[in-house]
């Protein structure tokens, strides 16, 4: 199995990994907090895509044992995992969005560098500023 065919046969995994890395790039380099959340979601989708493809079978039927359906069935486990993963992604993203709302309301901006610069001014008071 020379390199070319192995790359071609693993194309689904490679795409998933590429998506993962691009999501990571967005998350790490973007200055806007909402963009970071978007980057996080891109990474999550890529991991879910990767897991589903591990359960795939060439020209296999979806794991529904309805009467009269034969042939190799796709593995049901990855589907269950991804279902759970999606729910996790929803909850984390919703919490992140609410935090961004609160940061916007209390620190005045969602741009990281603006927040940091604001942070420096009252840094002398330090975290909490002794307000208990």
């Amino acid at each position: 199995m020379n390199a070319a065919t192995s790359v071609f046969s693993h194309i689904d995994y490679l795409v998933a990994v590429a998506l993962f890395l691009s999501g990571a790039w967005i998350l790490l380099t973007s200055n806007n907090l909402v963009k970071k959340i978007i980057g996080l979601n891109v990474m999550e989708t890529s991991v879910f895509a990767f897991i589903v493809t591990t359960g795939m079978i060439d020209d296999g039927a979806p794991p529904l044992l309805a009467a009269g359906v034969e042939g190799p069935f796709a593995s049901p486990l990855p589907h269950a995992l991804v279902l759970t993963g999606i729910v996790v992604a929803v909850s984390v993203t919703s919490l992140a969005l609410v935090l961004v709302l609160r940061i916007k309301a209390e620190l005045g901006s969602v741009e990281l560098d603006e927040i940091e610069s604001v942070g420096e001014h009252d840094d002398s008071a330090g975290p909490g500023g002794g307000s208990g």
Partner: protein
Amino acid sequence: MNAWRTGRILTTVLIGALAVPLMYGVLHLPPPGQADAPAHSNVSAKYIEHGAEHGGSENLVTGVLLNYRALDTFGEVLVIFTAWLAVAAVAGTARQTGHESTPPSPIVDYVIRMLAPFIAVFALFVIVNGHVLPGGGFQGGVLLGAMLILLSLAHGGEPVADVVSLRTWIWLRAAGVLVFALVALLGLPLTGYLFGLPTDPTLRHALMIVLELGIGIGGGAVLGGLYFSIAGVERS
């Protein structure tokens, strides 16, 4: 600004460097789609082989979710509720004053009001038929949530949030977890193990339906609740 510029270049280089081992590692995995790959020969083969009579549903994914790996799904339902709990605990005290949602044009208002019942029926269909067709509690819940959000977009959050009292909303949101906990406890006398579904098909089928409904309604209510909190509608 150049500190930020170098930061970006540095991250790009880091990500590029990370790509090589990742891609190389993934390449050595057994190619997807091969029938003899370990992914299909081990646990999955057993699921497919005994799925129908043990798992209790033609849709093997629902069988895995509700029967084989019930603890995962219990964890899941809990994560959904915790998401709402977290949002409620953290939602800032600052009231979202200012921009009132622009009143929708009558056409949009009328269409949504027409669509709502149909979405609800379809959601119930997806929930109930989860063990035959692709579907189940989570998918149904998302549909219900989408309906709630659609309605509150059209009519502004308050009317939708006030359709029932806040107490009831919270009980609805906890429906998923409480139903699952009850069924899990029920599993103890029936099968001698927590989270165990009984082997008798009809009782198991009934319990699975109850679970699906709990997850669906719970999920829908939570998604609605998330929107209400973010929109600052709910007076928690």
